[in-house]
């Protein structure tokens, strides 16, 4: 046994305590850094040689402590769970927000929505029924019908711009995704080099984890370790980042909400052009563009067609002030006769009749009353009663609004549940990887005392050596 080996042991102890205090300092400094994982010095006692060799025997006392490795405390399982949960939360957030904004386009229930416009139009018919010969009542009906048309146009426009806004947001978002993927590839390269050089890269790894979590929220990315310190990032089964190379994502497909069914928006890799099943915010936006918004556009168009169908049919059954049969009230703006209902949309429905005299209020055919023009108002009353039809525009519209309310409320409640799940995973992650100030302070005291003890050890050995030297004098 060497005379000075005790000093070596004490020196390793001093070094270990110092290093531990340094790491404590780093932890405290990053107590509030987003994505930081606490670090710990991995202390290993150095034992004596246990395998006897020629001319070498162990003195059976350990040789101090090894404090070379610093580990990063993080639970990989919780990280991958967080990626999945954050992606789901982001997806639901977008869908719920889209439905909320669709709801606000309709302004129901209230006195400014399409329902009250339809109600006003039907009331206009009843006013004509009271005063079939009064041009004022007829003009009022035409105005109210025009208001309904404008209301349908306005909601259709709001849905359309919601669609376009979603598409623009998705494009911008993909630019961000591409930049992030590039950063992750760069970090992979740096971490790989550090790992090969045996240098710690905890902070770089933290930064990479933050970026990957960002990608998870954005496009539902997941990560798998590749073995050399790098992480591969995959999105919907397609590898986005492998080692130090990253693919790009781009949005293709229609830029017009009317042609979604024939040319749906899709996210593809570039280069490669492989369609990617994204998750997260992008999934929510794609769902909004492919089903949510077009679904309500289709329903609104169905309502416009229903209005046109029932009003046209009703109006054509009547006779105007000149005793002529009524003309169709609404068309698609083309002015074609006969009116084809299938080409009418909520965006192009147009009031064809502008002359109050052409409003067909009378229900009695002039042929039945000896050629005289009838001033009865049976048809106007029949039009008024259309508001009560079980399958009429009013009922269809109301059904749609209620279904929208249910869908939006369900989405909001799903989002609420998912947010709780997601925040629980975040709490669990923080419980493992987060910095506890109390704990760090305890560690600090612990290592301070260890340092003091090791110092004491050095001075004791020193005085022992003094004593030894004095013996020879």
């Amino acid at each position, binding site marked *: 046994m060497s005379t000075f080996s005790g000093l070596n042991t004490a020196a390793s102890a001093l070094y270990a305590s110092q290093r531990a205090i340094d790491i404590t300092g780093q932890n405290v400094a990053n*107590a*509030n850094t987003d994505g930081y994982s606490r670090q710990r010095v991995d202390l290993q006692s150095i034992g004596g040689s246990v395998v006897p060799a020629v001319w070498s025997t162990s003195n059976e006392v350990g040789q101090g402590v090894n404090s070379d490795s610093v580990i990063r405390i993080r639970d990989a399982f919780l990280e991958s769970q967080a990626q999945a949960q954050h992606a789901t939360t982001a997806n639901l957030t977008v869908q719920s927000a889209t439905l909320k904004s669709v*709801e606000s386009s*309709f302004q*129901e*229930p209230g*006195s400014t929505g399409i*329902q*009250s416009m339809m*109600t006003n139009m*039907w*009331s206009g018919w*009843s*006013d004509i*029924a*009271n*005063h079939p*010969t*009064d041009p004022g009542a007829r003009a009022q009906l035409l105005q109210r019908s025009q208001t309904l048309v404008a209301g349908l146009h306005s909601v259709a426009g709001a849905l359309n711009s919601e669609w376009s806004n979603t598409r623009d947001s998705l494009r911008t978002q993909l630019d961000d995704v591409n930049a992030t993927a590039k950063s992750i590839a760069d970090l992979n390269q740096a971490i790989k080099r550090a790992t090969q050089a045996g240098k710690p890269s905890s902070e770089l790894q933290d930064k990479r984890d933050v970026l990957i979590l960002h990608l998870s929220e954005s496009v539902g990315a997941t990560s798998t370790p590749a073995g050399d310190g790098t992480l591969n990032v995959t999105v919907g089964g397609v590898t986005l980042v492998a080692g130090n190379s990253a693919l790009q994502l781009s949005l293709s497909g229609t830029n017009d909400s009317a042609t979604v069914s024939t040319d749906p928006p899709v996210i593809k890799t570039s280069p490669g052009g492989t369609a990617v099943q994204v998750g997260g915010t992008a999934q929510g936006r794609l769902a909004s563009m492919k089903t949510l918004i077009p679904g309500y556009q289709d329903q609104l168009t169905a309502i416009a067609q229903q209005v046109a169908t029932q009003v046209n049919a009703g109006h054509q059954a009547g006779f105007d002030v000149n005793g002529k049969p009524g003309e169709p009230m609404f068309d698609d703006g083309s002015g074609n006769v006969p009116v084809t209902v299938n080409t009418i949309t909520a965006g192009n429905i147009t009031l064809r009749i502008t002359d109050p005299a052409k409003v067909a209020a009378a229900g*009695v055919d002039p042929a*039945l*009353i*000896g050629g*005289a*023009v*009838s*001033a*009865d*108002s*049976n048809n106007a*009353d029949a039009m*008024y*009663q259309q*508001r*009560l039809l079980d399958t009429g525009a*009013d009922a269809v519209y*109301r059904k749609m*609004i*209620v*279904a*929208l*309310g*249910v*869908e*939006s*409320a369900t989405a*909001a409640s799903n989002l609420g549940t998912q947010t709780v799940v997601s*925040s629980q995973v*975040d*709490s*669990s992650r*923080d*419980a*493992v990887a*987060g*910095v*506890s*100030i*109390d704990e760090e*302070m305890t560690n600090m005291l612990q290592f301070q005392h260890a340092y003091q003890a090791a110092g004491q050890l050095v001075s004791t050995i020193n005085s022992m050596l003094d004593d030894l030297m004095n013996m020879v004098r």
Partner: protein
Amino acid sequence: MRITQRSLALNSLRGLNGNLAAVSKLQNQLTSGKTISAPSDDPTGTNTSMLTRQGMAGNAQQARNISDGHTFLDSSDSALQNMLDQVRRVRDLAVQALNTGSSSSASNVAIATEVNGVRDSLIAQANQVVQGKPIFGGVTSGNQAYGLDGTYVGVGGANGVPVHPVTRRVSDVEAIRVDITGPEAFGDPQSGKDLFAVVANIASHVGDATLLTTDLSDLDNVINGMTKAAADIGTRSARMDDAATVNSSQALALQAKLSDTEDVDLPKTIMELQMQQTGYQAALSVTAKSLQPTLVDFLK
């Protein structure tokens, strides 16, 4: 589970945000006075609210129809009453003319002249116009029910044209007829025995007792018809009154229902707000206390 300062802070923040969101929702309800600001707030309530609003609009329109119908019926009624008074005068004159012994030819002429005068007045009354429509003209688009010579020019009830009633929609399921055509009130012009023909006959038959007696019985028939028409109008007027009562009580019921569905229950919401605020303040004070101390505070 390991608790760190950061997770404590984040959890507190989440809790505080939740509290504040609840306060904000209640505040929104109180300031707008409505519990439903979007369909998703209460889809079933939205359905009720939309149905009720539609019902209220229909109800308001029907209230207008009812008051309009009243005007029409009242005009018809008063026209008929006035005309009945005048027809009775004609009858008196005819009876006077029958007493041939006491009347001279000069007084016969005077009676004939007066009867003709009354006839003109009756025709003018029968052409009375309400809201641009001659009330006894059926569904004519013209502005007269009878020509100046007493021929019927309205549409419906004569000349082989059936009566097309003019109605007012007083509820979703009921429409009340508000008019009565000239032929219905004054007799069929084709028989030559309607009011104006009979009165003309009386004027020309003054002095001829036999013919005048026939005319007098014709006139009694016409008077019966007119009285019946007036009674008919009266009955419909009563139906209109009933409809108005039903309508206004329905308006109240609908308003109450809408208010029930949409409006904020003030005491309840204010209580909830108070509770939420108390909770929020408690959360704030607890957060302030729990976030402050760490071991650092106690190390020397």
